[in-house]
């Protein structure tokens, strides 16, 4: 009894720890093990193939498309949300009337699911009845916006919809950080004759470093996980032109009965994410103490 009483705090932590230990770390290990087997429809552990499945994934043309698309999507999505988010935050920080209303408008996409976002943008981007049709009806006959039907351009549609959804969140991060900057430093610089842009470039932007870091990590990890948006917006198409690692994983695991290949692709997604996250967590934990 005394033993339990003394350990009560640790014991209350136990259920959560067991859940996370199994569902995060246990499952990561299991997925890795499955990626080394010849599992097709169901996991089976009677034949070991080493890293053959990884070689199979890397030599598959769809994975090649997925990796290339991920590079385009990841870079433009992170870059786009950072530029739009920072730009809007700086402009909103100029003592704007109706700031509250504007902020709400920039932010509401954050409340929506990627499925809703995908459905809405699919509709806007449809060449027959969407924006292209609208501009032509208004008299701009040569206006063309049919990227969603073109294999080469469809991935940029995913970027647009994704950036639309997430820029507001980045704006909120930067705005909070801007408001947290010590105003005395800025007025001191102004007294010294520094111009507006110089103040931004030399004082304010460097002071936003933690916000940049948070935004990059959050958006980077979202871009790796991103699955729903592609499913709702393009179904991975036309053909498999908008394939991402996440859609590759789902397709091979659940539709094509190539579970071991699906597991291998999932492991590679995790490795990519770990490279991004662990240095961040490490520095966070050291600062946080």
């Amino acid at each position: 009894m005394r033993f339990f009483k003394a350990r009560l705090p640790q014991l209350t932590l136990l259920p959560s720890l067991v859940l996370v230990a199994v569902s995060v770390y246990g499952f990561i290990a299991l997925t890795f093990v499955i990626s080394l087997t010849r599992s097709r429809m169901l996991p089976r552990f009677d034949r070991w193939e080493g890293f053959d499945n990884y070689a199979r994934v890397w030599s598959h043309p769809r994975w090649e498309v997925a990796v290339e698309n991920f590079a385009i999507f990841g870079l433009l999505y992170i870059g786009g949300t950072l530029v739009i988010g920072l730009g809007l935050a700086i402009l909103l920080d100029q003592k704007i009337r109706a700031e509250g209303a504007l902020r709400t408008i920039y932010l509401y996409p954050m409340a929506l699911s990627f499925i809703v976002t995908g459905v809405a943008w699919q509709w806007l981007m449809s060449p027959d009845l969407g924006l292209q049709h609208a501009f032509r009806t208004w008299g701009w006959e040569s206006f063309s916006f049919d990227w969603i039907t073109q294999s080469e351009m469809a991935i940029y549609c995913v970027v647009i919809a994704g950036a639309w959804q997430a820029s507001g969140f980045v704006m909120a991060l930067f705005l909070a950080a801007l408001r947290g900057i010590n105003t005395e430093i800025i007025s001191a610089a102004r007294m010294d004759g520094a111009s507006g842009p110089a103040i931004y470039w030399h004082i304010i932007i460097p002071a936003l470093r933690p916000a940049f870091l948070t935004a990059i990590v959050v958006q980077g990890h979202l871009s790796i996980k991103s699955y729903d948006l592609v499913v709702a917006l393009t179904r991975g198409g036309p053909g498999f032109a908008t394939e991402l690692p996440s859609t590759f994983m789902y397709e091979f695991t659940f539709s094509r009965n190539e579970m071991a290949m699906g597991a291998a692709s999932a492991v590679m997604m995790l490795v990519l994410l770990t490279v991004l996250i662990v240095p961040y967590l490490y520095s966070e934990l050291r600062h946080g103490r």
Partner: protein
Amino acid sequence: MAADMRRSVQRGVVYLVLVLAAGFFLLPLVAMVFTSLKTMPEITGGAGFETATILSPPRLWSFEAWGLAWSSACIAVACEGLRGYFWNSILLVVFAVSISVALGAVNGYVLSKWRFRGDSIIFGMLLFGCFIPFQIVLIPMARLLGLLDLAGTLGGLVLVHVCYGIPFTTLFFRNFYVTVPDELIAAGRMDGAGFWQIFTIILVPISWPIFVVAIIWQFTNVWNDFLFGASFAGPDTRPLMVALNNLVNTSTGTKAYNVDMAGAMIAALPTMLVYIVGGRYFLRGLTSGAVKG
């Protein structure tokens, strides 16, 4: 004078950019709402509607599409609308959010106020759970739910969302309780309060800001989830987002765009409402935790 001119031109440009950006962000919402309130001839530019576009306000207002989407649109083989799936999502959210938030609150309390050897390693390992791509757990989770006889059930889906919600809720509460002075806890102990009394009497009453953050976060994540719902739900337990995706992408015959958009609005309204009501507290709490550096 010239300086005044330049200043007001500058202000004008700032406002212009902000308003244009607002237009860009409102575009999909406007298209969704307008389309959901139109009849099909007006959407496809039928006779009498030649000048109608995706962004023109409805000339002939109709709420028919909303009714269809709610109670009689066909999703897979059933033609009963989104109604049933809406309630699935409500049930899922109620259980998944309350359990994961309650566990996160207690975890955060222990990890910040009852420090023990190795607690920061445990916290770090929990934190990593926030960031994993869920693709890495799909296959084993499907097996586990099968073994537990929870495959295709709402209970199974609740379990999944609790597992992957705990890291987030623990992070929120731990970061919040770290800022609560330890003297408060010590005083409680002096008065003879035990582990649970300190938590319920001293901490819970001052924790409402972080409860708001954790609840809104979990609510939006669970409500908006698609991957887990698509992977683990059965035909009768499908959450709303999975049903919406099926509605929009598998409709046979002529596509009823107005019904699709009404369905999307029905799926979007609860989280938008939560955000409009509580968004301010949410952001304040979230950003103050996330941008500390």
